[in-house]
């Protein structure tokens, strides 16, 4: 080995470090997004939903929560493309109480998305904290926390939700339940599904904590909490992102199912699920649109979220190829 090589590296003109957006444009995620038509379409549709939900009060021609704007005489009007009976005011028709279906769907999407995202935030918070601690501490702490997760997973989400919500409704009365329905749904769906996050995070933490940068942080004398949240957590973000998209879709479906069963949002503040359920009684009297149109809206929303989640998983986990 020659030891005569100069110690200083050859001077290179310091370039300016790229900012976050320039960095993002160089990433694999952005490049594969530019190539993947399905991802682009899904993302566009999803953004459309988000905009619909955000600006619902401005887009909607009527306020579905305002009883004075409802007229029972307008009930069960078919969509306006049906020239015989349709009314051009209500282009998607009206429901059994004379509410404009388009406005109700806009507000319902808003509620469904809010519940889905809030429930996932709750799941993620609980799951990430438990998963990080279990993975990083290991040993007995890990065993105990993961057995909790197993117990939680052995009950299906729907069963837990139905039992909790039914007991709540029975003991505190329907009036209070209707006021708190949204919070209750977020809590129940959020708490029932945290093991999904905890397990995923634990697995990535187990892989990350063997890497030398964690040892380097320990040698530096950093505290455990700082190592967990500042060093390990940012390196487990990709699986978190992937399950989050799928989990939002799942939470929306859970909420819709609970609402359909009468345990979700009240009819006065319908989500997509309660809208589907409220139209169900009229489907055989010919008023198909009250159920079918919100149903399609829900299916498309859940479909694009799943497609986005699939695409993200393929991009962020290059070891996993489609068969």
């Amino acid at each position, binding site marked *: 080995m020659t*030891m005569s*090589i100069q110690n200083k590296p050859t001077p290179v003109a310091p370039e300016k470090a790229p900012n976050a957006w320039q960095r993002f444009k160089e990433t694999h995620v952005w490049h594969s997004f530019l190539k993947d038509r399905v991802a682009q379409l899904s993302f566009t549709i999803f953004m459309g939903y988000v905009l619909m939900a955000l600006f619902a009060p401005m887009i909607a021609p009527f306020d579905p929560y305002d009883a004075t704007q409802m007229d029972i005489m307008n009930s069960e009007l078919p969509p306006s493309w049906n020239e015989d009976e349709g009314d051009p005011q209500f282009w998607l028709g009206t429901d059994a109480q004379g509410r404009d279906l388009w406005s109700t769907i806009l507000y319902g999407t808003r509620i469904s998305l809010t519940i889905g995202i809030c429930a996932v935030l709750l799941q993620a918070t609980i799951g990430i904290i438990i998963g990080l601690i279990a993975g990083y501490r290991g040993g007995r702490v890990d065993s105990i926390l993961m057995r909790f997760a197993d117990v939680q997973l052995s009950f299906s989400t729907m069963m837990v939700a139905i039992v909790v919500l039914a007991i709540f409704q029975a003991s505190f009365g329907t009036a209070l339940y209707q006021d708190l329905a949204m919070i209750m749904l977020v809590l129940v769906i959020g708490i029932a599904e945290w093991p999904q996050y905890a397990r995923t995070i634990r697995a990535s933490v187990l892989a990350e904590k063997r890497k030398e940068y964690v040892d*380097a942080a320990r*040698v*530096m*004398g*950093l505290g455990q909490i700082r190592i967990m949240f500042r060093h390990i957590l*940012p*390196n487990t973000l990709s699986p978190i992102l992937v399950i989050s998209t799928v989990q939002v879709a799942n939470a929306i479906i859970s909420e819709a199912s609970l609402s359909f069963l009468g345990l979700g949002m009240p009819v006065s503040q319908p989500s997509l699920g309660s809208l589907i359920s409220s139209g169900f009684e009229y489907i055989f009297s010919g008023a198909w649109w009250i159920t079918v149109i919100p149903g399609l809206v829900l299916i498309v929303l859940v479909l694009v979220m799943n497609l986005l989640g699939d695409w993200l998983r393929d991009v962020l986990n290059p070891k996993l190829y489609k068969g």
Partner: protein
Amino acid sequence: MTDQTVKVSSKLEPSSEQQVASEQQASSETLVQIRGLYKKFNISGDFLDQLKFKGGKIVREQEFVHAINGVNLDIQKGEALCVVGESGCGKSTVARTVMGLITPTAGTISYRGERIDDLNDKQLLPYRKKMQMIFQNPYASLNPRMTIGQTLEEPVRLHNPDWSAQQVRDKVHEVMFSVGIDPSWGERFAHEFSGGQRQRISIARALAVDPEFIVADEPISALDVSIQAQVLNLLMDAQEKRNLTYLFITHDLAVVEHFGTRVAVMYLGTLCELATTKTLFAKPRHPYTQALMSAIPRLEDDRPPHIKLQGEVPTPVNLPSGCVFHGRCPYANERCKQEIPQLITTEEGGQVACHGVEEGRL
């Protein structure tokens, strides 16, 4: 060999004998003292995996990897102590135990006479400032989600909580400059650098808290040969300028010859020979060291023939009895199979753990 320098090792306790040896040696200041270090790793899984059904009874069986088996080592201030040995001989485990990343099964580690192996994280913090570590793989030892500026600022902030932002930045720029990294690259991420540059950044991170003792766990073995020399020179420069002491783990004997003040040769978790670099390279005493030395590729024509050791390294799960090297040693006799050799001082001033040397037959 005179009677004074040779110690009869068979009946004495290893620790008491070792203390005598160390007192003789402790003429210069001892920075780190390792005494009777043992580390075994449990490989038998959790409690249910340990239960075995044997002869109609359920018994609990545990298996251990004996990574370190009674290592005594003194690191003198200002030296570069190289630890060499083949893969799996416990060199890295020694390094990680010294740094407190692994708790030893038995034995003590002292820093300037104060025991540090039983301290908790908070009590260790002042020692963290004085002892730092450089890791083997520069691709894994830098956090990929942090810019190198953040990586370097973190230890400085932690250990100097009362410094202003400007002082922290000045310190970071100073260490980056001293390892040959342009301070304006601080906003970049680790993946934007080459392996050699990353290792320079790791060195800068270790130097950022002004340590006096650095454990380097094979810091150049993951690098390209041309870069190895640069990084090695950087480490030697830093030693000179900052008055550092190194515990240098490596398996590259050419590096040891160039870099080390003293060399410790390890085999299967035990220390077989400890001597100054010059002595060890001129006259290796332990049969294992001799075999190791003969394996160095050399250009000379008159080099001694390569010593070929027979057999495999025994598994550290079931350690051989007596001298751990007896199964492959060409000079092993009955005593070597029975009795664990202790370190004895040779007339050259080195220490060697071999019955053959002690009996004067080698």
